[in-house]
């Protein structure tokens, strides 16, 4: 390996004593980028204790080096101490790329780190690639730059962002948009303890109370999602969505319109402001298919759309389109499925 390899660093987030899904997705993406660049994948995990128990999993997804920062004061995420450790590690190790999950914590931490390092940060990326960039004004070509690809303008455009002159190139990446490759349990890596070096003035917040709600809905894990939109019409009709999901062994999703109308809770929302999913089968019932919704489900393996409006945009991305009343179509589907299985 070269003397100063400028590796790819992933900030690993703990979701209540478990590795966050998005962090493992990022390790997979970092592996792909690092292979292209001929460098190593590094990961940083900050926390309280026994962090080395997570190392085999992080290595199995593709990390080569894992920095562990353990300190009793770092049990719960607070901005300033975590920012202090992350910024200092980046200064010390000089990665060329740093990736964070676009989770509430990632979106709290990454901008503050980027500001401290006076470098660029692209939020909520949906894809990352390596390529060249030509600055026509400066007549200069930059090789092997990180393309940071993200939706903007409410999802109406997709922008490719580059930061040619600044290092590290930093991005937060949405959960669920990167495919998690199968782990290789035989892969190993090197654990490097990294000191926290904390000072009392970093601890300015007192957490008086902290409540962690149960994870009730995990749409991302579902192979089949049956989702209802504003076209479902009422909370009573929404029972049909639950019935179909139960019959098929799937989970219930919803568009923003259905959530806003009070048919179902926000934790079921699919789309740009909800969850991004890629199930094997997505059944959109009474969902018109606004771009914000499509951004959360258009990578589904198969999409069935049921809508009374033949011009609904959802039909443009559906593999199977049923123009009809969901109150009639759904019972037919339940019946047909029960007869066949």
């Amino acid at each position, binding site marked *: 390996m070269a003397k100063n390899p400028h590796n790819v660093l992933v900030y690993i987030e703990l979701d209540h004593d478990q590795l966050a899904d998005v962090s493992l997705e990022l390790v997979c993406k970092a592996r792909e980028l690092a292979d292209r660049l001929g460098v190593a994948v590094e990961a940083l995990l900050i926390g309280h204790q026994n962090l080395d128990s997570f190392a085999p999993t992080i290595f199995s997804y593709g990390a080569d080096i894992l920095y562990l920062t353990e300190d009793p004061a770092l049990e719960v995420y607070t*901005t*300033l101490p975590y*920012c202090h450790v992350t910024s200092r590690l980046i200064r010390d190790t000089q990665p060329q790329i740093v990736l964070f999950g676009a989770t*509430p*914590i990632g*979106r*709290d*931490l990454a*901008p*503050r780190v*980027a*500001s*401290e390092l*006076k470098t*660029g*940060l692209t*939020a*909520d990326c949906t894809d990352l690639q390596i390529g060249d960039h030509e600055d026509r004004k400066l007549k200069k070509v930059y090789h092997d730059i990180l393309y*940071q690809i993200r939706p*903007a*303008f*409410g999802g*109406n*455009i*997709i*922008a*490719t962002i*580059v*930061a*040619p002159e*600044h290092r590290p190139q930093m991005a937060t990446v949405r959960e669920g948009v990167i495919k998690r490759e199968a782990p290789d349990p035989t892969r190993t890596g090197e654990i490097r303890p990294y000191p926290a070096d904390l000072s009392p003035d970093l601890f*300015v*917040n*007192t*957490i*008086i109370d*902290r409540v962690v*709600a149960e994870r009730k809905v995990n749409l991302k894990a579902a192979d*089949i999602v049956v989702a209802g939109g504003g076209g479902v019409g009422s909370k009573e009709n929404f029972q049909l969505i639950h019935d179909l999901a139960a019959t098929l*062994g799937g989970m219930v999703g919803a568009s923003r319109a259905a959530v806003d109308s009070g048919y179902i809770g926000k934790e079921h929302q699919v789309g*740009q402001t909800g969850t991004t999913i890629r199930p*094997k089968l997505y059944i959109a019932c009474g969902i018109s298919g606004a*771009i914000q919704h499509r951004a959360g489900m258009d990578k589904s393996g198969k999409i*069935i759309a049921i809508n009374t409006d033949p011009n609904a945009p959802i039909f*443009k*991305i*559906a*593999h*199977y*389109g*049923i123009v*009809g009343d969901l109150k*009639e*179509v759904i019972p*037919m*589907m339940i019946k*047909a*499925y029960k007869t*066949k*299985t």
Partner: protein
Amino acid sequence: MSIHLVVLAKQVPDTHNITGEAMKPDGTVNRAALPAIFNPEDLNALEMALQCKERYGARVTVITMGPPRAADILREALYRGADDTILITDRAFAGADTLATSYVLAKAIEKIGDVDLVLAGRQAIDGDTAQIGPQVAEKIGYNQITYVEAIQELKDRTLTVHRSLGRVTEIIQTRLPVLITVTSSANKPRTFGAKRMIKYKKARSLLEIKREVESGSFAGHYGLELVEDEIALVTKELREKNLLIETWSAADLDADPDSIGLRGSPTKVKKVISIVLAASETKDIPPTEEGIHDLITELIEDRTFG
């Protein structure tokens, strides 16, 4: 106790309500045709500041960086109850990414001086980055608390807030000064006050005063020097009536030219693709017993149902 609150606001294109008129024939959005509005979550931040003012007695200053027409949202802030407004505008700021924008906003907050609490919306609906709050906080050396849902108490310069991070909710206590970002579920922003609207409809930024004086009948009859005098006079009158929207340029902020606008922005937009609906091949399924039966059979046979 009198504390000084600063609200960071942005004028944004209304990307959430795209009507047919803003769609181009090729199915992409004509961004220029979108109406410009007060960024929704910045209104939640303003509402939180105004409630603080009512509960604890505070001065509320709303600042925005943007083109001259961003003065519109500052007038709206005055209609709702803001005490002071500042328009930060300069061609040199154009093309700024979040790092260059946060630098300018931080310079403005430093120029205001002695700010106890900075409030900003969680994110703006044009970029959805949620970066400005934390980046401004870092630049002015303030602590930050993002995703704030409510201020529970503000007493003896100790702030207690309720925040929500996905599945986690926290009650956090901290000392002023601090910067917080506010979510849409925090409150319901108030509408315009009728009396305030009548009064503050006359509020003007320096650029608007200039334009109105220069295009008025006055200017045609007198020399340049007198026009300048008239602008100074109108500015003074409006300031006395508290109707002046303070207007600051890069020079007023003593901003480093290498830190603002395109030059101060590490990130560049390489390419933009407008989204056009992908015309995938859709198989039409008739909404009949037979049609549905065939569909279900196909999906069972190709193992989509696991």
